[in-house]
């Protein structure tokens, strides 16, 4: 766990991604989906920040926007004190070497027609690391580090199982020796026994490579296991952010509370008090006014319907956006 004085490596301020939707039925011409709405957080060197939320909460979009896979609509992302969102594509390429991503679906994140060694090597080619022979060696080396054999180099993705493919995905992300890793649900879709392999490997590699990670997941227990700090997202907004142990032992936002209580626990005898939220997640096309959560919040007050709650630091390194605490 990083100490308190850890230096920040990536500062995200007011990140926004609005998609315009041309609906046939909508009255206004261009409706906007606020997939990510004013999200700010900081990544400290060496830590793993977990980003959790249910589907459609904008956590994946956030990850992609940082790498400009989706061009953000607003905000700043400071890396080495430079706003990487303002860089030209050519300049941004250098940043891309340092920030790598691991994708959720190990089946579709590898080009089926390219031998996996070549897939991994491509990153080196793009960033002109090493010469021909060196590159091959680097790749063989990294294959070993993620627990694959060097003769796997010449095989095609379809010859691998899901777990192995996720190892390949990790190898590809790590081969260019990045400093930041963005992991988008890297262990979802895998069976429990495989998932544990990947999570363990991930932890090992983070130490080996001295990585800073943003770990995006919908699985609370996985996030708890792997992250140092956790941010909870709901409908494009960051609701609560705290150190992992704080958040899981003492959640303050009603949504976080509900989310945590909804996770089924593989233990018996301890019947917990469950907060079952009423209703569904509102459509992001037509988000509620005020606090975005008020439609489902068991503690909703009048003010929640009108005023968007500010982010408040209720405790050291524990922030929450809720009227109950402001």
């Amino acid at each position, binding site marked *: 766990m990083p100490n308190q004085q850890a230096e920040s490596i990536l500062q995200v301020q007011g990140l926004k991604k609005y998609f315009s939707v041309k609906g046939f039925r909508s009255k206004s011409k261009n409706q906007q989906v606020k997939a990510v709405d004013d999200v700010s957080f900081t990544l400290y060197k060496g830590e793993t920040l977990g980003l959790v939320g249910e589907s459609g909460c904008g956590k994946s979009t956030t990850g992609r926007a940082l790498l400009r896979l989706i061009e953000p609509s607003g905000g700043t992302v400071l890396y080495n004190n430079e706003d990487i969102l303002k860089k030209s594509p050519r300049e941004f390429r250098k940043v891309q070497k340092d920030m790598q991503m691991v994708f959720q679906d190990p089946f579709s994140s590898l080009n089926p027609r390219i031998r996996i060694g070549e897939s991994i090597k491509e990153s080196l080619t793009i960033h002109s690391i090493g010469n021909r022979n060196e590159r091959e060696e680097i790749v063989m080396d990294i294959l070993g580090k993620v627990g694959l054999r060097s003769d796997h180099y010449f095989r095609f993705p379809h010859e691998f199982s899901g777990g192995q493919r996720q190892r390949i995905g990790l190898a590809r992300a790590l081969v260019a020796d990045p400093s930041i890793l963005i992991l988008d649900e890297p262990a979802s879709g895998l069976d429990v026994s495989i998932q544990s392999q990947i999570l363990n490997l991930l932890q090992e590699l983070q130490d080996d490579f001295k990585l800073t990670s943003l770990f995006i997941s*919908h699985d609370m227990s996985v996030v*708890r296991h792997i992250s140092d700090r956790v941010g909870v997202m709901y409908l494009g907004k960051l609701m609560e952010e705290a150190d992992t142990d704080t958040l899981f032992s003492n959640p303050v936002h009603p949504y976080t509370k509900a989310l*945590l209580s909804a996770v089924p626990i593989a233990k*018996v005898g301890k019947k917990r008090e469950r907060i079952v939220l009423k209703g*569904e997640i509102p459509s992001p096309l037509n988000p509620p006014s005020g606090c975005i959560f008020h439609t489902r919040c068991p503690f909703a007050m009048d003010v929640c319907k009108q005023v968007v709650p500010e982010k408040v630091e209720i405790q050291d390194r524990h922030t929450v956006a809720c009227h109950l605490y402001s």
Partner: protein
Amino acid sequence: MEQPLLEINNLKTHFKTERGRVTAVDGISFSVEKGEILGVVGESGCGKSVTAQSILRLFDEKYTASYEGEIKLQGENLLQLSKAEMEKIRGNEVSMIFQDPLSSLNPVFTIGYQLMETIRIHQNRTKKQARQMAIDLLRMTGIPSPEKRVSEYPHQLSGGMRQRVMIAMALACKPKLLIADEPTTALDVTIQAQILDLMLELNEELGMAVVFITHDLGVVAEVCTRVVVMYLGQVVEEANVEELFTTPLHPYTKGLMKAIPQMDGDRSQKLNVIGGTVPALNAIPSGCRFASRCEFANDLCKEKAPDLQVHEGNHKVRCWHYAEISNKEAARHA
């Protein structure tokens, strides 16, 4: 003892594939009592879904699948029924819900139509009556303004709503047994919680038995009374839920439980890893099916397949030396 509601004896389901015959479910036996919720848990490819669908004989018996063994519903062997008789059972005595509620609902018919269809197949109702019943069912499963919803199409509903519709449809004829095949896997946690609550509620209210198929041990712990653990087409362990979670016996069950990240307690500990991968169905090892991944396996395991043996009461396990393993572990902890 009272006759169980459903009794499966040595069920085998074979499939014809391009690479020859494959036995996806190989000698499964378990029973379901009235009103209980039986969990069937296992990782992908373990045959849990095949088992579920075999109970209703949903596979095409003419060209692809064949069954062996017995599936007794209240003493009547379903595998010996004619097509027409089977159709009377389905949706009426035994009904089913599936993992993906979107693809499981016919996209081109209204929800009302699909509900009324079930009702009118099995019950002699007029259209009007059936429609009213459909609305009542939707209300029962907690769908707001059901009068409006009956004339909507599946794609107009959210995932959670769709699963409620599926449940309403499955419950239309007040079946004695509901088979739920991963009913919450595709849903978000908060929605999953709603659906699980609903199922528990309905189980209590209507008293039907449920076979709950899932890969999520957490869900099992929350809703089931008894659990069957499957691995590669076989039952490896069966127990009451408390017993399974407190004293799991099979190395696989144990490994699985320790592989899950926990929601409380120490998180600095490494997760347990079950090495290797599940063998393919057409390359099943001759001995114990788990042997290749089991850290305790010895030559016996590799040569001879163990039977499902009774540990005590209704706790059964398929392992040659589960007792030794438990002792060893106990010793290690001590």
